């Protein structure tokens, strides 16, 4: 294991289960990963793969009950976030840990002006005086590319377009210069030309501020352009993890390969028929035995139907969890 001081963030065997009327739902089931200082990690998966719940659990934003964590620790520096009291985590959240959500319209307060929502962060965390907080907020809005920030700061969220609202969210998240930023599908609700703008912005700000980013997305294209490392999730677990270059050049897990192949691409010849992963995404309340991907996997054997696969090491920076691939040991 690497030196913990090098890692800003370390998730160890995190499990988030939900008690529901239909039984126990294992949304996150034994996830471990690390994020180094200034690094960008992509977490890819489809809806229900547990990628958002992983981030929300780490931020302590999952309501408990119905959720609970049977095991797991989330280290931010040397603190285990899961063992903090509510006031302690609130102190960290917004200052050293920040999050951008998918839908900026529902995550900004429609009743409050942008100024109120931004300055609050500084007043709470840094005891800033109102005038100074306002000045810093305007500067931040300018940095994220909001034209005429000094007057727009007094507007309400609905007066901004989708792309501009996402910029406001980013400004709010970065106000205190956090060490770690979770971006949960930050561009999914946006048009492609606006998506390109926002991704560019995140990339540049990250370089300038040195924040580590955990980018959650279903879009492998976004991951390819923005991340250093990538973790692929399926049914609440990470099935493949590695540097972005390795995972894209040499995908190992059949699910990762399927995802990559089934993505319609702009840079390939036109295909009459696209490769499609057969079957349906798994029902988390009723997972199959063995490897949860086996009902959709072309390589599944009896072993896959019964025993959860081992993690195989492909290189020092690349591993995958599947019975049917060759590891180096």
């Amino acid at each position, binding site marked *: 294991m690497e030196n913990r001081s090098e890692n800003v963030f370390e998730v160890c065997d995190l499990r988030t289960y939900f008690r529901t009327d239909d039984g126990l739902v294992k949304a996150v089931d034994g996830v471990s990963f690390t994020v180094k200082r200034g690094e960008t990690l992509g977490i890819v998966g*489809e809806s229900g793969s547990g990628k958002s719940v992983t981030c929300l659990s780490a931020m302590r934003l999952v309501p408990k009950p119905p959720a609970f964590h049977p095991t797991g620790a989330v280290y931010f520096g040397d603190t285990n976030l899961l063992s903090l009291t509510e006031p302690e985590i609130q102190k960290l959240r917004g200052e050293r840990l920040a999050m951008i959500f998918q839908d900026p319209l529902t995550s900004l307060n429609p009743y409050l002006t942008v100024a109120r929502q931004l300055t609050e962060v500084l007043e709470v965390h840094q005891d800033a005086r109102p005038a100074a907080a306002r000045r810093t907020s305007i500067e931040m809005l300018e940095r994220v590319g909001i034209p005429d920030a000094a007057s727009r700061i007094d507007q309400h969220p609905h007066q901004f377009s989708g792309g501009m609202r996402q910029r406001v969210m980013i400004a709010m998240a970065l106000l205190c210069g956090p060490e770690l930023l979770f971006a949960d599908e930050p561009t999914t609700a946006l048009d492609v030309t606006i998506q*390109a703008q926002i991704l560019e912005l995140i990339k540049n700000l990250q370089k300038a501020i040195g924040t580590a980013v955990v980018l959650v997305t279903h879009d492998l294209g976004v991951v390819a352009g923005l991340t250093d490392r990538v973790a692929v999730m399926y049914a609440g677990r990470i099935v493949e993890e590695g540097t972005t270059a390795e995972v894209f050049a040499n995908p190992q897990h059949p699910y990762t390969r399927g995802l990559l192949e089934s993505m319609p691409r702009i840079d390939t010849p036109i295909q009459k028929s696209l490769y499609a992963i057969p079957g349906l995404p798994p029902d988390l309340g009723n997972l199959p035995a063995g490897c949860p991907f086996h009902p959709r996997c072309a390589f599944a054997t009896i072993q896959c139907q019964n025993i959860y696969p081992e993690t195989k090491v492909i290189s020092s920076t690349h591993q995958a969890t599947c019975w049917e691939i060759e590891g180096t040991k």
Partner: protein
Amino acid sequence: MNTMGKEKIEKNFLDVSDLAVQFYVPKRGGFFRQERAELKAVDGVSFSMSRGETLGLVGESGCGKSTTGRAVLQLLRPSRGCVIFDEEPIHEFWKKKGQKWIWDQRLRDLRRRMQMIFQDPFASLNPRMTVESILAEPLRNFDVTQGVERREKIQQLLMTVGMDPRCMRRYPHEFSGGQRQRIGIARALALGPEFIVADEPISALDVSIQAQIMNLLSELRDNLGLTLLFIAHDLAAIRHVSDRIAVMYLGRIVELASAQTIVDRPQHPYTQALLSAVPVPDPRQERLRQRTVLSGEMPSPINPPAGCPFHTRCPLCEERCRSELPVMRTIETGHQVACHVVN
């Protein structure tokens, strides 16, 4: 099932010319006085389709692509322009009832031949109806088949879209998004249509399911000889199913060409920017790529800019782009562009 016999090569199956749709929206600020502003959602769209062809309509949200789809099907009454469907001027098939325009019998009858697939498989199926009654509704409306025969027809429809016919007693909430979209497709196919407008049929689905639905649509099109107007915002997806692609911006088509040409030799600066904004799942390429990131956003269709609608964001903008609206012109066979600057 299909009227493939009376195929006419030289005549277009669908001809849309100068189509426009206006909405009236409350003006900003006027809270007590309800002043209405004119929103030109679609403004002078023309294209034609031959039988069996798939035309992709791409653009970003608010560009009027869905409105175009609806207006072509006469689900909305166009405020201007003609839609000729198989030599019939269907934009005239409306009658006035009091203050309102309603479909006349001819348009009602044409619903058998033209259908729509909707974007959101969660909103477009009635949660209180079983799959059987959802699929029976169009059959009942047009008095197609009865009793046992109707049930057989429904089972057959479900099999056509790759579903287990036994699921017809179940309700929409029991299915996943992909399965619901299949049910929506089955409903559109129930009356054996010739022309289908598919409005973003895959954008609400998971990545691994999108490919399944796209393949299903292409298969059905080939097997049933459907003419398909495929509306999407995703250029990467649409180019694999379309013969030709029309790119829309602010209510107008700015470029129209074969799917191959649009991707290989895009001429309009907006098409070029749109293409360069599509992320490629290849880290090496992504790092090397020279991206034209457009500044700004699409202007409001309530108050569109003068001249070329794209000039506010265009990297090639010249003096006359600010005042003069570019018309669609043919720059090579089958390739039309509305831009002053490109030759």
